């Protein structure tokens, strides 16, 4: 189970380890349910990991802007295993985890105790073996 916290009682945060061609690093990332891809990183952070832009994809921002942003392939440590993910490079300083990465997980946000958990669904290991 991945454990995070609700920062300042408002912002769900989790630590994710992202690996590129030359390095890996843990980032405190916002769990953003309005972001429907996997991970967003700042361009400078991505460059330090050695992430290379494979392609450019249309991204719709909440302010109505529609922009081509670079997309890279990286690996993320997720539920104890390395997983290939698409990383969108943005100008936002704060890394984000989107619903594309949360898919298949049970996410609990407790805004009373300021706790966040991301768990694999019960029985998922058994189903995988079958």
């Amino acid at each position, binding site marked *: 189970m991945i454990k995070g916290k609700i920062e300042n009682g408002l912002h769900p945060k989790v630590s994710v380890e992202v690996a590129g061609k030359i390095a890996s690093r843990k980032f405190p990332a916002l769990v*953003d349910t*309005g*972001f*429907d*891809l996997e991970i*967003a990183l700042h*361009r400078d952070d*991505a*460059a330090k990991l050695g992430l*290379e*832009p*494979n*392609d*450019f*994809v*249309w*991204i*719709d*921002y*909440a302010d109505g802007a*529609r922009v*081509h*942003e*670079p*997309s890279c*392939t990286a690996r993320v440590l997720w539920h104890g295993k390395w997983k*290939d993910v*698409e990383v*969108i*490079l943005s100008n936002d300083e704060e890394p*984000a985890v*989107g619903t*594309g990465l949360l898919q298949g997980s049970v996410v609990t946000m407790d805004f009373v105790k300021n706790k966040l958990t991301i768990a694999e669904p019960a029985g998922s290991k058994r189903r995988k073996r079958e």
Partner: protein
Amino acid sequence: MEALTIDRLPSRQEIDAYGAAAEEIYQSFRPKLEAEHWGKYITIYPVNGDYAISRSHRAALKKMQKKYPGVAFVTNRIGYRAVGHFGGTGASDGKRPKGGRYDQRQN
């Protein structure tokens, strides 16, 4: 137009020009694409107009990377305004065509 390579992050101006060239290619056969491949991903090489279509972004990209190693592409989701959204709804540009392959798959 020159190919953008993956060994460097291009400037905003270069990305916008590359994206605009791909958008022009997409728009040139958009009705046919949307009738036959609604919801799939199209990865375009703006330099020569070649493209690959697949149900997943990664699969469309891999097909093109195999043909053109070391260069960058532009990917669209067919029928949608964008591939990803920050705070958006993921709405498409218009109505999904009835009776197409997408409908058959869903039923």
